[in-house]
């Protein structure tokens, strides 16, 4: 049970069509999450974290184009793009917590009304919707759940709103929770509480968690495994411990170095430059233009994944020789188009 795959994303490519052309945002994302596993998806602003989650949930924006990829949830394919046809099903037993708790609650309905809808349609319970909603609120450690049930979103503080969102996710009775930067807009003390809550709930209910965040620290404290994303690509993934103790990819290293430490070691150099323009992303490694180790090859060829250590994969030619080609973009049934 425990090692079963709850969620698998294979070679996901998502583009956005805008007037200037096509933004090639996601460039072959692969990730897997096992039952009860908590993974972190870490990356800076605009690297495509939200897009990945939306693709999994099947709620991509209208101008999004899925050019390839497959998403399997609980063993069922919910999204697949192949040369000839496209599969789209709504994913069951997946819940998402959005980045901005204010924007993810309907401002003109009470918390109760919104939660009951979720209970009714996501958890398929129509008889005791109200109790279930209030229960979920309690689970999310909201004091005075009965009152909050009748409140409108604007009557709650930011922290409470985020807990409501968590409660709503729980009310859907999922086995996978996708959390999109659930704590970015919160203070550290609240963030701490929310993360602990989320972690506890996942452990208690054996939920798989995909935690999207830009804070390496948050990911480390919550997750078992971490995927580091850069400009629509996964550059490195490994267990939390490995990533922080032994980062390989120049990007991960740069990122970690730029973090100010509580122990006070001064501020290192940041990484020069900016995230590339998605209209014309670099041909080869997307990080190449900012990478101090970049070679000509990096500019022309996309690196595959190389296993630098056990279970520690890096997508960088620097490690090509070390352990040979490892798990690559391997799901050959998908076509690139």
């Amino acid at each position, binding site marked *: 049970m425990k090692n079963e795959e709850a969620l698998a994303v294979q070679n996901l490519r998502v583009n956005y069509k805008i007037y200037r052309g096509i933004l090639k945002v996601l460039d072959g994302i692969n990730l897997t999450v096992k039952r009860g596993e908590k993974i972190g998806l870490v990356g800076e602003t605009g690297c495509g974290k939200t897009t990945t989650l939306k693709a999994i949930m099947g709620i991509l924006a209208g101008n999004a184009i899925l050019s390839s990829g497959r998403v399997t949830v609980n063993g069922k394919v919910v999204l697949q793009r192949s040369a000839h046809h496209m599969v789209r099903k709504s994913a*069951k037993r997946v*819940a998402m917590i959005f980045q901005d708790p204010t*924007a993810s*609650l309907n401002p*003109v309905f009470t918390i109760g009304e*919104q939660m009951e809808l*979720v209970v009714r349609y996501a958890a398929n319970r129509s008889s005791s919707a109200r109790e279930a909603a209030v229960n979920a609120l309690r689970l999310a450690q909201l004091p005075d759940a009965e009152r909050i049930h009748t409140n409108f979103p*604007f009557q709650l503080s930011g922290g409470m709103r985020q807990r409501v969102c968590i409660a709503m996710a729980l009310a859907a009775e999922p086995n996978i929770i996708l959390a999109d930067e659930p704590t970015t807009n919160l203070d550290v003390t609240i963030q701490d509480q929310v993360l602990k809550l989320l972690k506890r709930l996942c452990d208690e209910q054996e939920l798989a968690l995909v935690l999207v965040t830009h804070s390496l620290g948050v990911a480390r404290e919550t997750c078992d495994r971490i995927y580091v994303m850069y400009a629509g690509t996964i550059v490195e993934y490994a267990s939390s411990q490995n990533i922080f103790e032994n980062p390989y990819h120049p990007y991960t290293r740069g990122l970690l170095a730029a973090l100010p430490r509580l122990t006070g070691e001064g501020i290192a150099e940041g990484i020069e430059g900016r995230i590339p323009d998605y209209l014309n992303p670099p041909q080869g490694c997307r990080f190449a233009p900012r990478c101090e180790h970049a070679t000509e090859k990096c500019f022309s060829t996309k690196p595959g994944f190389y296993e630098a250590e056990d279970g520690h994969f890096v997508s960088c030619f620097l490690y090509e020789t070390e352990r040979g080609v490892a798990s690559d973009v391997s799901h050959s049934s998908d076509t690139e188009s």
Partner: protein
Amino acid sequence: MSLTKYIIKRIVYSIGVLFGVSILIFVISNIVPGDPARMALGPRAPEWAVEDLRKEMNLDKPLVERYFLWLSDLMRGDLGESLRSRRPITKDIAEYLPASIEIIALSAFFMAVIGINLGRLSARFSGTWFDGVVRILSYTGIVTPAFVWAILFVLLFSYLIPIFPTTGRITPGLAAPPRITGMYIIDGLLTGNFRVALNAFWHIVLPSLALSMGGAAQAARMTRASMVDNAEKDYILAVRAYGVPNKLIYRRLLLKPSLVAPISIMALDIAALLGNAFLVELVFLYPGISRYGVEAMLNKDLFAIISVVLIIGIGYTIANVVIDVIIAHLDPRVRLGGAKSA
């Protein structure tokens, strides 16, 4: 701040503004040249009679005093005398206002109901041919002035497809119902004159439609835009991901937050509607307050002009308050005193 308190505050403020309005139009109408007393009495009246009337109308007093005299009359419900007919204006207005209220109420209804529903459906089926048709229609609706609609309707319905009458309040020969409210439809219904009520209703359909086209188009456009916009909001994405059916989303979850914008701009549409009533009543020869106003304007009937403008100002203010209340109802932030609505 509770809803009642909010409404009271709104009303008190509106009354203040209306006082300002009364000063504004009184001043404007009193600084223009011309001798109202002479105009009232006609060319052959002896000078002494004109002089007497001038006194009676307080024209010999300074402007400020005149304003307060006028205002105190106004407070007593006396709007003065029409210079043209020497009849109390209050009486004229009692006669014409109900007719206009019928038209305007029906237009507002058309505007809201047709507009919002078209917009809703257009958003629901956005991208389909239906959406395309609605968008073209609403653009046409917006750029075509009400009086042009009125003329087109007259052309279409009175001659090509003569199913609607194009002039007046009821068919000549049919007696008006006994006066209770002055609104034929309501009076007809109250007194059991259903034929008259239906006939009167039949008469206001075209003018009301002509009046409401622009507003309805605008409402459709705004509703559509606002719904399409909100459809990408996280809170809609969320419920959609949780499997809430589309129908429910479009009828409720998406519609309600999207109504605030179109209803807010309806205040402007109502302003346009009240203004356009002046032209539309003219085209349909509809004996309402606006046509009375036009007559007054063409004949420089000072006090009648002031009264009509003031009445319309009051009507517009009331419409605004009503719209605010509807918005407060839709948007709990306004109702319960959170942030102001967007």
